[in-house]
Every structure is written in C-alpha cells, then in structure tokens.
C-alpha cells in the first residue's frame, strides 16, 4: 500500500514540476494557464492517493470542489486573456505594462 501511495506522489510531484516549469518559462498567457492546469492535475493525483489510504469519500468531496474552482479559474483567466488580447493586441505577459507606474 505504501508503495502505491509513494508512486502516486512521485508522479504528482513530477506533474507539478512540469506545470510550474511551463508557467515560469513561458511568456504566453494561454500556455501559462495550461501550466496551471497541469499543476492542478498533479495536486489531484496527490489528493486521491492520500484519500485512498484514509477516507475516499472526503477525498472525492474535496476533488469535486477543486474541479469546480478549477473551471471558474480557467473561465475567468481565459476571459481576461481575450480581454487583454483585444486591448493590447497580444497575449505576451511582457506587454501587459499599461498599469506600470
């Protein structure tokens, strides 16, 4: 049982790293959102592995909450992205400097 848990957490950490690297390395807002999604997949794997050892119902309840929040974050993020594209003509984060003091 411990081996299965450790394997899940190992791959969850790997997924989290891939998403974090994507968010840090990319200047494209859309790609950063994809990185955020990959990070959330890693978190989800870690949650379900923990839940399988302790309380699967609680883990499912938390995962359902997480998925709902994820959708709202992605929808709001994409809306802001389209808005930024229409305002600045690009999705490059370095161009988002209109509020610079």
């Amino acid at each position, binding site marked *: 049982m411990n081996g299965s848990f450790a394997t899940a957490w190992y791959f969850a950490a790997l997924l989290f*790293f891939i998403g974090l690297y994507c968010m840090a390395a990319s200047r494209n807002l859309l790609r950063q959102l*994809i990185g955020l999604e990959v990070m959330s997949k890693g978190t989800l794997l870690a949650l379900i592995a923990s839940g399988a050892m302790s309380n699967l119902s609680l883990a499912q309840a938390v995962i359902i909450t997480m998925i709902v929040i994820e959708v709202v974050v992605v929808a709001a993020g994409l809306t802001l992205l389209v808005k930024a594209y229409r305002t600045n003509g690009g999705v490059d984060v370095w161009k988002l400097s209109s509020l610079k003091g």
Partner: protein
Amino acid sequence: MIEYREFLYLAVTLCALAAVMSRNMLTAAISLAATSIGVALVLFDFRAPWAAVFELSVCAGLITVLFISAVSLLRKEEPFFAEDRTRFRLLPVFALIVAIGGWIAGWPFFEALADYARFGARGQSLGSMLWESRRMDLLGQIAMLAAGVLVINSVFAAKKAGK
C-alpha cells in the same frame, strides 16, 4: 512488470509533457484533454467514480472547449508571437533530472507521508460527507461560481460600455 496504474501515471506525465511542449496551441489543448482523460482513468482505478466523472465531463470536456474557443479567438496571434523554444526543448532534460532526484531523495519522504495519510480514516458515504461534514465547501463552490459569472459578465459589460 509495469502495472496498469503505473502505465496510466506514465501516460498522464507524457501527455502533460506534450501539452507543455507542443508549438501549436490547439495540439496543447487536446493533449491537456488527454491528460485529463488519463487522470479520470486513475480516479476510476482508485474507486472514486464521482470524482472521475466530474474530471471527465468538466476537465476533459468543458475546459477543453473553453481552451479551443480561446485559441480560435487568438488564431491571428501566433505568427506575430514566436516564443524562444529552447526552454521548452530543455524541459524533458529538467524533468528527467527531477525524476532521478525524486527517485533517490524524494521516495523515503513520500513513504513517510503515507503515515499522515492514514490519520483521518473514517468510513462515510460521499453524500453524507458532502452535505453534512463539508457543507462549507458547497457554499464556497456556489460563491466561486457566482464570482466567475461576475468576472465574465463584468469584462464583457466593460467592453460594451467602451464602445
């Protein structure tokens, strides 16, 4: 011999790498959907069907549709904004370093974490858990959904006012 669940983990990781590294955004969105499908299969394998169905319908369905519609709105952007691809080509190397480092250093830590995971073991059904113990979570979900609708509404309303 590689087991079914480990094969799924590998497939999810490879799909995530493809989503991050692909040059075309449409391919990235579809790879992300494949990652979600892999995660949903892992959830089914963990005997968590409700979470798996949510993951499959919402993450692999709705979020992919949102991404693809956003990509179609930004289609003209791609020729004008070419990113430095070197960082993304280096990602498998960095991922391999993290994988080897995690195998050597992280494994005992993950095994120690299993003791903490056993801490809150109590058997309850999902319905009673969600409606009795985690009622605040449901309220939070409603608040988050309202906030999301408000953000989308306010952004598009601001555009109309700007015209």
